């Protein structure tokens, strides 16, 4: 169980493989269409949705722009409430803190609430190397874990799997790690959910240590919040004696009252419900109720790098709702694996380079280009992250990181400026283009959806046309036609 994103190819290559998978495209189209419809219905019910978005963005900004004092307040209130606060500057530090808590209690297994932060730091792999099994308890995470698979969506990590595939995974793998799936399991979702209930219940009832993330951390009170659907979160947060929560430092919100905004924005944006089935809040240790030993690991792992980027720091407002994935025309077609990270889709295209740095790898540097800049993600974002602007800014940074070797795209833009700058130059080029168009229509292999002939690959601009179809130029330019026919009169 050690699937990893390490070594993933850059986006264009990964996307080409994903696009060739008809099953994947079918599953994704169905799922994203369903969730888009649900979200629009419940967002439309609220007359003050825009006011909530404005407040949500400003609240996150107010915590982020004074993050040092926000974190000091959070630490003080957590400590006062009986929690032990740890700080981890990177993934390795965070993983070893969690492992040492587990070791202190002599356990060889922990139960886990779905958490993006622990996926990001690859906690399960780290614990496995120390002989500690980490059981994912969210249904979709269980599907991914049992299938030795990778997550492809923030909210629904197994969105790329349909019910028949899930049935097959449960039948094949559950018996290896615990209670087997019922032999007569069908692919009805109700039966699949029940198989997960039975399989995981024995793990919940015996677990001594649980690991979670947090959706929000309230600076003033030290309250952590987990938003979920199935009750697996409540099981992990309530039944074990020891709870370790790994919390990104950007999860902090100023006050308890601010939850009135986020608990409206998040469920409607993520699962498209008025409210998710279960939300748990807890403040340190409550005597006689729930875990009596509570740890909180405050995780940096690149967040301060993102914070230093004046344009990009708004990405740290993200509340991981995944609305931007569901509305993105690129994500809908490629799915999440092509982004090579636990954070896929539009937010992943900015968050990954912001957290890990531009110019570090071709894979990361390809992500800001995985977008048509249509702007649907900004419209859907409940905390108004202007993803298109950050994408454009990151593209500039990627270009800068790769100087002095000038990119063909930059050279092409310069050439375009030269030719559009003069009518006579443009005329000459159009005639040349017409000759090329005549040749092209003879060698063309297909027509685009609009019925126009299209070139799918050009030898001298492969990076551009490899991911796009270029319409073949017409044999005669408009200006030449106008001259020849006197504006259509001849």
């Amino acid at each position, binding site marked *: 169980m050690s699937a990893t994103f390490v070594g993933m190819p850059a986006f264009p290559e990964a996307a080409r493989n994903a696009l060739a998978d008809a099953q994947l495209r079918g599953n994704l189209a*169905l*799922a994203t269409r*369903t*969730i888009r419809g649900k979200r629009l219905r419940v967002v439309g019910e609220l*007359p*003050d949705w825009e*006011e909530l978005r404005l*407040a949500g963005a*400003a609240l996150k900004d*107010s915590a982020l*722009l*004074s*993050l*040092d004092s926000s974190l000091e307040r959070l630490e003080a209130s957590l400590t006062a409430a009986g929690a032990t606060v740890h*700080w*981890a*500057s990177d993934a390795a*530090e965070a993983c070893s803190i969690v492992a040492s808590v587990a070791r202190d209690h002599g356990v060889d297994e922990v139960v886990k609430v779905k958490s993006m932060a622990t996926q990001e730091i690859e906690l399960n792999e780290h614990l496995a190397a120390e002989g500690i099994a980490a059981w994912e308890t*969210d249904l*979709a995470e269980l599907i991914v874990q049992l299938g030795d698979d990778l997550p492809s969506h923030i909210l629904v990590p*197994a*969105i790329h799997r349909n*019910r028949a595939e*899930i049935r097959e995974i449960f039948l094949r793998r559950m018996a290896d790690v615990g209670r087997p799936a019922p032999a007569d399991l069908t692919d009805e979702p109700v039966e*699949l*959910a029940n198989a997960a*209930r039975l399989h995981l219940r024995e793990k*919940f*009832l015996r677990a001594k240590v649980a690991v979670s993330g947090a959706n929000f951390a309230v600076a003033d*009170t030290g309250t952590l919040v987990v938003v979920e*659907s*199935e*009750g697996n979160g*409540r*099981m992990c947060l309530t039944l074990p004696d020891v709870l370790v929560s790994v919390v990104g*430092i950007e999860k902090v919100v100023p006050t308890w*009252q601010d*939850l*009135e*905004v986020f*608990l*409206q924005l998040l469920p409607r944006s993520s*699962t498209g419900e*008025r*409210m*998710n*089935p*279960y*939300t748990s*809040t807890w*403040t340190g240790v*409550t005597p*006689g109720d*729930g875990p009596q030993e509570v740890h909180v690991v405050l995780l*940096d792992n690149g967040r*301060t*790098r993102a*914070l*230093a980027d004046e344009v990009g*720091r708004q990405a740290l407002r993200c509340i991981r709702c995944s609305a931007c994935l569901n509305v993105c025309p690129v994500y809908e077609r490629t799915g999440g694996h092509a982004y090579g990270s636990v954070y896929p889709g539009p937010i992943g295209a900015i968050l990954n380079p912001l957290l890990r740095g531009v110019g570090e790898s071709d894979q990361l540097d390809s992500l800001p280009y995985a977008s048509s800049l249509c702007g649907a993600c900004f419209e859907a974002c409940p905390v108004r992250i202007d993803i298109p602007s950050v994408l454009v800014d990151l593209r500039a940074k990627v270009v800068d990181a790769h100087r002095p070797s000038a990119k063909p795209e930059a050279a092409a833009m310069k050439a375009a400026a030269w030719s559009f700058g003069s009518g006579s130059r443009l005329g000459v080029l159009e005639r040349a283009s017409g000759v090329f168009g005549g040749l092209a229509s003879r060698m063309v292999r297909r027509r685009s959806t609009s019925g126009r002939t299209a070139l799918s690959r050009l030898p001298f601009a492969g990076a551009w046309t490899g991911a796009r179809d270029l319409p073949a130029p017409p044999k005669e330019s408009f200006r030449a036609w106008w001259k020849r026919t006197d504006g259509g009169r001849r």
Partner: protein
Amino acid sequence: MSARDEILGRVRSALVGASPAVEVPRGYRTRGDASVDVLALFAERVADYRADVVRCSPDEVEAMIAGALAGARAVVPPELGWHVPDAVVDTGLSALELDELDAVVTAAAVGIAETGTVVLDHGPGQGRRALSLVPDLHVCVVLAEQVVAGVPEGVARLDPTRPTTWISGPSATSDIELNRVEGVHGPRRLVVVLVG
């Protein structure tokens, strides 16, 4: 240098030149529309999640609880204000012992009409968190005066130092092809008894 000092140092240098003053526009609704019948809306929205809702007067609560339990073996928290015949009173039962019981009856702290949500703060009559989690049927009694219109009024009534559990319908998942399926790890049936 400790990780704490390192992180706080990085935060401070990341924010050099940034202005920490952010005005938060709170133009959203913090009070419900007075013309809306919040009790009717609450009942309708809870039922939308395929939970059962029954409305009754204060002297009918025990009969409603008995009807919802239909003979199921129930656990109740100490200080539940209603008598449930043959129920086990929680005295710190283990998770395994709770798993042997079919149902739980609790009071609530807040009801939120717009979202169809019941909030427990695990005070008197509500029990510790495990109690309303492990048994498969949760019968939750909500008083009319506990029901507010929207989320902001609900948050304002709650004490952040207490653990809270917000419940909107029975346990559910949307993880299979993004369709909601009721019944995973939490109680698969939720009955809300709305009093008054």
